[in-house]
């Protein structure tokens, strides 16, 4: 996949948001803004956190880059490698499996020709099985960006994939 080279800097609008977020915490505790800022950074820079992006966030918070790396690598919502425009986060945990999540995942794998963690050659889809999405009563469930898609069947999944292809727009959490 081609990785674009971009200047690592938030837009003025995002910087204003960052300043607002920093006000949530007492003086000197700005590191608490790290998770909110990483979410914003991921959304701004192609839905993944490159070392340069993490260094930029460290600079904004006046903390060491290693403090950002260790946090970014701990939480599963952060992508540390380039991903497709649509990250298909399918829940693979018990309750969803009881109602057919494994079949839906297998269907996606077969349909797109990718395994968990892989991205389609056209850069459109990444398959990312995740642990419980807290939608157990409405499974099988898949999260794409900030949206939950519930009660999935292979047919409904096909419809969604088709829709995403047509929209062709990067989906992020925020």
């Amino acid at each position, binding site marked *: 996949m081609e990785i674009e080279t971009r200047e690592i800097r938030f837009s003025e609008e995002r910087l204003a948001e960052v300043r607002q977020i920093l006000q949530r915490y007492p003086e000197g505790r700005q590191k*608490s803004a790290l998770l909110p800022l990483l979410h914003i950074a991921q959304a701004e820079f192609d839905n993944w956190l490159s070392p340069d992006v993490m260094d930029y966030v460290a600079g904004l918070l006046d903390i060491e880059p290693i403090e950002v790396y260790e946090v970014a690598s701990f*939480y599963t919502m952060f992508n540390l490698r380039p991903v497709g425009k649509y990250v298909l986060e399918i829940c693979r945990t018990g*309750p969803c499996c009881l109602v057919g999540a494994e079949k839906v995942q*297998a269907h996606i794998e077969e349909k797109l020709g990718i395994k968990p963690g892989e991205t389609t050659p056209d850069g459109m889809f990444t398959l990312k099985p995740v*642990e419980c999405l*807290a939608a*157990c009563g409405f499974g099988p469930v898949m999260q794409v960006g900030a949206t939950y898609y519930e009660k999935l069947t292979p047919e409904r999944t096909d419809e969604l994939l088709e829709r995403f292809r047509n929209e062709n727009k990067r989906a992020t959490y925020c």
Partner: protein
Amino acid sequence: MGVKILTQHSGVPGIDTFEVYRKQGGYAAVEKALKSMSPEEVLEEVKKSGLRGRGGAGFPTGLKWSFLAKPEGVPRYLVCNADESEPGTFKDRELMSRNPHSLIEGMIVSSYALGANTSYIYVRGELFYVIRILEKAIAEAYEKGLLGKNILGTGYDLDLYVQPGGGAYICGEETALIESLEGKRGNPRIKPPFPAVSGVWGCPTVVNNVETIAATSWIILNGGDEYAKIGIGRSTGTKLISACGNINQPGIYEIELGLPVEEFIYSDEYCGGIAGGKRLKAVVAGGSSVPVLPANLILKTIAGEPRLMTYESLADGGFATGTMMGSGGFIAMDEDACIVRNTWNFTRFYHHESCGQCSPCREGTGWMEKVLHRIEYGHGKMSDIDLLVDVAAKIEGNTICPLGDAAAWPVGSAIRHFREEFEWHVKEPRLSQQQNYGLAAYADPLPVPVTEES
């Protein structure tokens, strides 16, 4: 129909807006508490109510609040734990997204009782749409003078913020949540000191579940004694139960504590029975971390009494024949469900979500996952079953936080109650695999296990 406290506004159009919530009597508890009660009186009502933490621990809320240290000149914090990630549990998400002002009202009342002037709602990061709903509702509350400086002219100040998580189950543990809120990895802290003494940024902090906090408004409006009249014994009030698995009507139900489990499963008001007219095989009653029980034991205690939805009745008999209320994540499994596969699945979850600080948890959860995987995929040995029991026992009680116990209990209880099924997987690997979820239709038969030996 039982008493509805948390879902009393269910179905009211526009209840997520300030105007509609106010018209429905919303924020009356804030008015009452701030204008006519001292913080100590609010705390006393919560104590009288018998309300217990609804996140899973079941610790008395008023007692927890009373432990909060109050050193001069040091800020105190209330943090709402909305990091709902326990498999089977999906109640807080619905409560927050459908009726965000009920949580905000509870946060104001509770913060006032604790003397907190800044509070946070830590929401699991995946729920970004819920975060947006909460932020909108908080902005409305600020605009109407229910948050910020001098709330309703009473002189009380409160700032309320939403903090997103990053997708780590462990952050539902209160000290891990605090670490995460401070911008670190969600590694649980050794206790003591407890958060009530040294929490966020070293300051006294109370961490409570969404459901717990949302219940305080009703308690203040109606009195702790009224709340205590609902339920049975030390299980007072109502509880949200999120029901899922092989049932006809999965969803979130508010029950009065004391409802018979059988009624919850089979009545049309709640789960509506087992899907497809099949037989009930097993239930995990309080989220994936609590012991699984076979149908006969979840419906009746070992003494033959009807099992009730109370903290005490569900635990009746200890772990030999009982389970826990936990977070209320009720997972029903029908006769076709594979206990081995389900146990492997849960163990994979705990292995994935272990923070890695404690060796028994870090290594043990992975070890159990590998052993269960090879049993499930037809490469198990009879000795593996006892090996699992042994590893689970060595994780339990030997970790900083309860994640180790949470990983061990499903394994120990599954083998305790369904040992024959594990043995069948070892003896008849091909037959067992064909049964499981119809996976043989697309999976390679008996694939090579992750590891041959552990």
